[in-house]
């Protein structure tokens, strides 16, 4: 196992290098150099200004030299300075990753807490009214576009909120976007305020994964409860609760664990659409904004960070799979 992990770690180096070359080339060779675009948007910018700025930013050098310099800096932990945000990218990433984690982890936990019990119940009571309800819900969950659902939630909870006629429910008016109320400082009020802002985006974000996890749990459970060892456990006279919890569920959750492990890298990547709709300053929005704004330094850093995360969590998922399922052995 150790040899396997070491081999995989060594393999990650050329893969990460390959990704970095491809990413750097694609971003750099895309039409519309950010400095060139300045001249097109502002008549006061002269060719000599463009030449001067390119010299200052090192954009006048050939692409391979720029790549080597960028790689050197990145390996030393200097991710560069963002032209759009006028901030070191490391600061930007630190704040944005924190914000994205708030949102995505909440959504992730919410999705799992709802999806696993619903999936199990659905499987154990197949074709019951609740099963139909759950499968219909998952169907909607995977079909509804996130941006539309987000806007609808904003209208419902922040604009329309018909339930406010009942004073007891007036707290259910939620902020339509943003991350916190300006001016609210640290401590408990800060966290409670953050919680209110997080409710809508995390529900929207949870919906899709909730539907997916419910489907996985349901189908996996359905498959497992028909296995011989479950029948054997029942025939031994074990209580139904023990059969389900100890024999069926443990095996049924193996595929779900793999999917969950793989999706952890996505937690750091944020959720571009949800973050944009709810004005949540996360990594996903940073990536979208920096690509649109031609801020290659920030875009490169975010993309590289995400690529490395995917590689690492793939490895973790593989290891986790082996630990959970004794039938799997890596050499």
């Amino acid at each position, binding site marked *: 196992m150790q040899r396997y992990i070491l081999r995989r770690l060594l393999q990650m180096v050329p893969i990460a290098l390959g990704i970095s070359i491809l990413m750097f080339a694609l971003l750099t060779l895309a*039409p519309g150099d950010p400095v*060139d675009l300045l001249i097109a948007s502002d*008549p006061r*910018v*002269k060719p000599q200004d463009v030449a001067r700025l390119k010299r200052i930013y090192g954009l006048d050098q050939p692409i391979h030299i720029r790549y080597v310099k960028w790689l050197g800096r990145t390996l030393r932990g200097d991710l560069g300075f963002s032209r759009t945000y*006028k901030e070191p990218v490391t600061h930007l990433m630190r704040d944005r990753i924190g914000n994205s984690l708030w949102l995505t982890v909440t959504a992730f936990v919410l999705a799992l807490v709802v999806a696993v019990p619903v999936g199990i119940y659905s499987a154990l009571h197949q074709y019951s009214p609740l099963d139909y309800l759950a499968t219909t819900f998952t169907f909607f969950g995977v079909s509804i576009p996130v941006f539309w659902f987000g806007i609808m939630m904003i209208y419902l909870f922040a*604009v329309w909120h018909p339930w406010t006629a009942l004073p007891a429910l007036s707290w259910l008016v939620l902020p339509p976007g943003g991350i916190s109320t300006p001016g609210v400082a640290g401590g408990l009020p800060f966290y409670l305020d953050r919680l209110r802002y997080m409710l809508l985006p995390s529900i929207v974000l949870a919906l899709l994964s909730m539907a997916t996890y419910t489907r996985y749990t349901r189908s996996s459970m359905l498959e497992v409860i028909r296995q011989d060892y479950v029948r054997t456990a029942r025939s031994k006279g074990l209580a139904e609760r023990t059969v389900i919890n100890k024999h069926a569920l443990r095996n049924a959750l193996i595929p779900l664990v793999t999917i969950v492990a793989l999706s952890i890298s996505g937690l750091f990547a944020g959720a571009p659409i949800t973050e944009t709709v709810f004005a949540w300053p996360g990594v996903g929005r940073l990536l979208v904004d920096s690509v649109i704004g031609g801020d290659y330094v920030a875009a490169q850093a975010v993309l590289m960070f995400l690529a490395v995360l995917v590689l690492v969590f793939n490895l973790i998922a593989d290891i986790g799979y082996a630990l959970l399922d004794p039938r799997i052995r890596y050499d």
Partner: protein
Amino acid sequence: MRARRQWSLLLLALLLTLTLVPWQAARAQQTGPAAGRDQVVIGMSQEPDFLNPMFAEMAAAVAVLDTIFVSDIERDNTWKLFAQGVEAIPNLKDGTWKLDGDRMTLVWKIKPRNWSDGRPVTCADFVFTHNVARNEQVPVIVRDLTNRISNIVCTKGASGTDITVNWKERYAYANLTITEYGALPRHVLEKYYRANPSKLNEAPYGNDPAITIGDGAYKLVEWRKGASMTVEAVPNHKLFGTPKIRRITWRFIPDTNALVANMLSGAIDAIGTIGITFDQAVQLERQAAGRFKVFFEEGLIWEHIDFMLDNPLLADVRVRRAIAHGINREQMVQQLFGGKQPVSHSYLPTKHPGYPRGDQGVTKYPYDPARARALLQEAGFSPGPDGVMRNAQGQRLSFELNTTAGNRVREQVEQIIQQNLREIGIEIKIQNYPARVYFGEITNRRKFPGLAMYAWVMSPTSDCDQLYTSDGIPNEGNGWAGQNYPGYKNAEMDRLCKAASREVDEAKRNQLLNQTVQLFSRDIPALPLYIRASVAAAKPGLQGFTAVQLSGTYETWNAHRWFWQ
């Protein structure tokens, strides 16, 4: 059993906390009375990049900078100039603006005021800022005025308020600003500048509220990146007194639908001109009659179609005029914009001081398909078997029309144009590009084969130098500089545009510009479509807030005079 009860109690306690605390907060948010309030929350779809005027590139940054810095000369919402940070606007009559051959000298006196840390604003701050902008190593983007100025002299010492600016060349708008970037606090910035001039744009000044000080009516107190920014009134400001609105917060909401939803929910009090689209403003006006004032202000953004004059078919002015007569622009603006964005007739918007009053001498091209067909016939075109006009050499009148992909309004306009021109025998093939490619490759390198639709953002000081002069045609030799994308060449236009950009007498300059407008409308190197309206919205109780569409001036220009009623 006991454990279960404990869990239930814990859950209940958690639910109660979650219910009661947000309820109080929600109540507080909803019940805040408008009158007497001392805060304003403005929604913006963009976030400022930086709050150092020398490096700020985004319009959103300028909107905020208007509150934390004093302008030397400012324009009000009627475009009238007034002296804000200086005692008077230099002029030729009283000798504060002197001409000496090609050179000029302007004499300024700044109004005494302090930086928000209490230190006085002095001539030395202006000199320092100008010298920083001049330094080749500093990554300041625009140095248009800086390069025209030879030097600045503090006539009554560095700590005084008297400034003399000597210009190397004549420049028509030299009395609108002392120098390109005004004054920045030397006592704060100098150490960063001395340490590394090429990284001055990475200094915390402009980013960190603790040291980003200005001389305006407000000071920056909080910037939550990606979320919000807050400025707070400077009490007893020497120029503005104590503003009634104590705090202004901008919330950055990139999705414009969500921005509208925020306005409807009451979470924000106003949306500035960098916010919602025209369509959304119309919708907001309809949805929330009485709850908000929605402003439509005819602005300076000019939507037009460039003709590629290297294309031999379009080089013939009769074909260009036929296209102009063949498109029903009046019906287009009525149908798409309810007439709120008027048809334009030349390159300057009608509100521009250089536009001839009453459209005098401006050639107009009303919708007239018969006239269009007659012009095409005169140019040697006759209908082919497929209904498309062709000339004696068999060349079909078929053009590619390019614009930015994904822009719904422009796509609707394209369809109307395609349909209109088909009726007079001109075929239009639509080919759109993502904005980056379109502006980074197609328009600025003159790669569009026929028609290119986009907008120019004009300002009250815009003229036609570089825009329609032959030295403004981008090519490899000049590093693709200049904005004359159609490739328009006219010696008379060159002469008039160059003269206008150097003419210091406003009346004479406007006369020259009038002539360029008339000439342009006659030669029609680009087809004027319409003037975009800028839109904004505010709760009716917010007094003094108006929509402004001026490059460099945003609705915050008079924030110190806002109040709630």
